[in-house]
C-alpha cells in the first residue's frame, strides 16, 4: 500500500507555524492536505471554506482537513490512517516545546506513513535572544539542528546585519544548511513538497545532511527564463530543484528539475519566490548556483 508522506512543521512558540498552516490551507496547490494541529486555538480558516466542523476535525472545501490531536499525536495519526481517500500529504504542526526527532521517531513506528521532512520556522525577531535563554536555548537549538529546512521568518523585524548573524549562527554553530527567508510565513507548498525529494532520495541513511547539500535561491528580474533553467540543469552535481522565480516583466515561473529533466512554465498566481536546489555533497557547487541570482 502507498505510504502517505508526513511533513513536520516545527519551531518555538510564536515563530509562525500557525500562520504557515493558514497560508497553506488557503493555497494548497491543488493538493489534499491533512493538517494535524495541537489545538485549533489561533487557526483562522475562512468560514466560507469550512464544509463541516466538529470538536476535533474541520473539513475544508477542496478536500483538505484539519484535525486537533491534543495530547495524542500517535492516536490522531492512527485515526487518519483510516481516512479515505488518503490525503496527499499530512502536515503536523508540533507544539512549541516538542523535539522534532521525537516526533520523527514516533511517526516511524506507524505503518502507512513516511517522514518526508522536517521544517523548522525560526522567529528572526527573537531567535538570538532565545538561543541565549537559560530555559529554552537547548530546546531551540535542538529544533533547528534536527530539521531539513529552516525558514527564517519575520525577517522584516530585524536588520540585514542581524539577519546575517542569525544565518551564520544557524549554519555554522547549528550545522543547518538549507535555509529560506520570508515574512509572514509566506512559503509556498511547492517548497515543502521538495522536502519529500530529500528524504526519498536518501532513504538509506538517517541524515539527509550527510548526502546532500542544498540552497534556496530567490531569482527575480530574470531576462531569460529558459537560460536560467538550463544553467541550473547543467550546474555541477545538481539532483533536484523546485520553486518559483520572477522575470524582468514581473511574470511568475514555475521551475522543476528532476531526473535530469527541466520543466518550466509560466504561472498566473503570485506564488512566493524561491527555488530549493539540492545536490550531492562533494559534487554540488553551491556558490555557482548562488551566483546565478546575482546576475
Amino acid at each position, binding site marked *: 500500500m502507498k505510504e502517505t508522506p508526513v511533513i513536520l512543521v516545527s519551531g518555538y*512558540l510564536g515563530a509562525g507555524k500557525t500562520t504557515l498552516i493558514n497560508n497553506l490551507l488557503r493555497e494548497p496547490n491543488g493538493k489534499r492536505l491533512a493538517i494535524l494541529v495541537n489545538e485549533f486555538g489561533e487557526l483562522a480558516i475562512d468560514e466560507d471554506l469550512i464544509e463541516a466542523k466538529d470538536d476535533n476535525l474541520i473539513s475544508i472545501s477542496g478536500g483538505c482537513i484539519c484535525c486537533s490531536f491534543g495530547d495524542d499525536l*500517535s492516536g490522531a495519526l492512527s485515526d487518519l490512517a483510516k481516512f479515505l481517500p488518503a490525503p496527499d500529504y499530512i502536515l503536523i504542526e508540533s507544539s512549541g516545546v516538542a523535539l522534532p526527532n*521525537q516526533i520523527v521517531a514516533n511517526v*516511524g513506528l506507524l505503518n502507512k506513513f513516511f517522514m518526508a521532512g522536517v521544517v523548522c520556522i525560526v522567529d528572526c525577531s527573537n531567535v538570538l535572544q532565545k538561543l541565549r535563554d537559560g*530555559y529554552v536555548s537547548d530546546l531551540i537549538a535542538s529544533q533547528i539542528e534536527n530539521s531539513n529546512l529552516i525558514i527564517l521568518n519575520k525577517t522584516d523585524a530585524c536588520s540585514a546585519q542581524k539577519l546575517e548573524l542569525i544565518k551564520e549562527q544557524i549554519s555554522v554553530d547549528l550545522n543547518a544548511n538549507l535555509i529560506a527567508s520570508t515574512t509572514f510565513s509566506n512559503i509556498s507548498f511547492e517548497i515543502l513538497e521538495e522536502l519529500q525529494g530529500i528524504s526519498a532520495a536518501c532513504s538509506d541513511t538517517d541524515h539527509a545532511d550527510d548526502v546532500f547539500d542544498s540552497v534556496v535561491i530567490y531569482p527575480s528580474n530574470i531576462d531569460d527564463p529558459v537560460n536560467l533553467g538550463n544553467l541550473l540543469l547543467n550546474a555541477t552535481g545538481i539532483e533536484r530543484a523546485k520553486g518559483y522565480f520572477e522575470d524582468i516583466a514581473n511574470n511568475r515561473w514555475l521551475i522543476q528539475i528532476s531526473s535530469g529533466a527541466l520543466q518550466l512554465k509560466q504561472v498566473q498566481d503570485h506564488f512566493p519566490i524561491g527555488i530549493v536546489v539540492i545536490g550531492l555533497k562533494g559534487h554540488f557547487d553551491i556558490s555557482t548556483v548562488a551566483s546565478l541570482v546575482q546576475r
Partner: protein
Amino acid sequence: MQKTKIYSAKKIYTMNPCRPIVSHVAVKEGKILGAGSLEELASWGEFDLDDTFNEKVIMPGFVEGHAHTMEGTLWRKVYLGWFDRTDPSGKTWPGLKSINEIIERLSAAEKELSNEDLPLSGWSIDPIYMDNQRISRQALDQVSRTRPIGVLHASGHILNVNSKGLELAGLLKKGINHPGIPIGNDGYPTGELYGPDAMTPVGKHVGFDRSMTDCDEQGLRDYARLCVRAGVTTCTDLAARLTEESVSMMLRVTGEANFPACIVPLKVFFGMSPKDLVEFVKEIQTLSTERLRLGRIKAVLDGSIQGFSARLNWPGYFNGSPNGLWYTSPEQLLELYSLALENNLQIHTHTNGDQATQLAIETLEAVLKVHPSFDHRFTLQHCQLASTAQFRKMSKLGMCVNLFANHHYYWGDEHYRLTVGPERAERMNACRTALDANVNMAIHSDAPITPLAPLFTAWCAVNRLTVSERVQGEHEKISIEEAMFAITLGAAYTLHMDHEIGSIEIGKRADFAILEDDPFEAKPVDLKNIAVWGTVQSGRIFEADNLS
C-alpha cells in the same frame, strides 16, 4: 431534623490549636457541632451517645493532595510489585521477588480469563529491586504466545509486552529505529517500551489505552474504598483529562449515597489553549458538589528525575545525561498563570527539577505584579529538588508546596547513586527546609505510583529512610506533629479547603480518620504500622473491613 450524635473515643486529636485533644465530638447534619467534653457537648441539647470508637483514636480525615483515581482501575489488572500491597477489597497481595514469581502470578491470572482475545495486563513491576533484570517479551511469551500481555512498571514510564502485543501493534519486525524501543540481538524489539511515545501504540492492545490516566466508573468506586482503608476522606485526582463525559460520570458516582470520599479532580493543561482551558474550568466549577470539587488546574512543566526528563539547573544530571524536557513552555505558563489569576482559578504545577521550579517561581512573581492576588496558594507539586533559596522565595510569594515524601523511600538510593548524586539526593523533598522557610507544605503518595497511605507518607517524611534502610538527609527530617499537620491541614490549605476540612472543630465537615493506635505517641519508626479502622465522612461511618 437529624438528631445530634456524640462520639466518644480514647483520644481525639483535633489539629485545632485552641483545644488540641478532646474526648468527644458531636456531629449533626454531616458537620461537626463541637469538639470537647461530653458535658460541654451535651449542653447543645438532645443527643445519642455512640461508643463505637471508644477504644479508637480519632484524627481529622486525612487529605491526600496528590494522587490519581486511576489506581482504582489498575486493581482490575494483576498486581506484580515488589512490595506487599492491599487491594480495594482488603486482600493483601504479597510482593514478588523474582521474574519467576511474576511469570507465575501472570500465568495464574491468565487461566482465569475466559475470552481468548482479552489482553492480560499487570502493573507495578520494578526491576531496580531485582538487580535491574529486564523482563523480555520471550519471558512473557511463557505466559501466553497467543494472548497480548502488557506489564506496566511502578514508575508508569515503562511498559513490557509479549510478542503478541508487539505483533498486534505492527512492531514485531526488524529495522525499528526509536529511542524508546530497545532492540535485541535478534534484531527484533525486546518488548520493553520506554516513555509514552513508545508505549501508546502498543498500550491499547495490551489493556492500557489512551485514557488510562483517568479512572472509569467502577475504578472510582474502588478507589474510594482504598481511601477508606487509608483514613483518607478528601482526595485529589491530580491530572484528570476531565471531559464532559468523565465529569458527568464522576458527578453521578460521587453522588451515590454510600460514596465515602470527597474527590478533587484537577484538569490537566494539555492539548488546549490557556484561554479555552480557563473557560472550560470556570464552566465546570459551577457543577461542584459536596463530594466532587471542580475548578482547579494542573500544569506540568517538566518530566521525572529518574527518567532524566526533569529540567535541572547546573550542573545537571550526575551521570551526565542531557537536560530533560519542557512539557509547557515559559510563554504558555505565563499566559496560563495570568489568565488563572485574572479569573480567580488556582493552579497546581508539577515541577521535579530545580530549573522547572525556578521557572514557576519567576513566572508567578512576574504575573503577581500585574494581577496582585493575596491568597492565590499556587502550589508546586513534587518540587523534589527545590533549593533552600527557592523555598525562601516561594514563601515570599505565598506559594505552597506538596513534596513527594514517598519517592524518597522507594527511589532515594537511585537518586543518590545515579541521577543527582549525594548532595542533592539528601535535599530532595526537603520538608524541614520548606517548613523553616514558612512554606505551607503537604506530602503525598502520587498513588498509584506508590500506595495511598498518608500514615506511611508521614513515616517517610519523619524517618527519611530509603529502601536500603539508610537515612538520607538527616537534617530534612520533620517531627510527627509536623507530619500529621501536613497530611491534614497542610494538604487542605493547598486546596483552599482548610476552612471546611483538615481539623476537628466546630462548623467543619465531620470527616474523621479512625485509628487503632495513637500516632502522636508512637515511635517514629512505627508510624507506618498504625492500623486504620476506617473513616467518618460527612458524618457517615465507613468501616474498612465492612465496606459494601
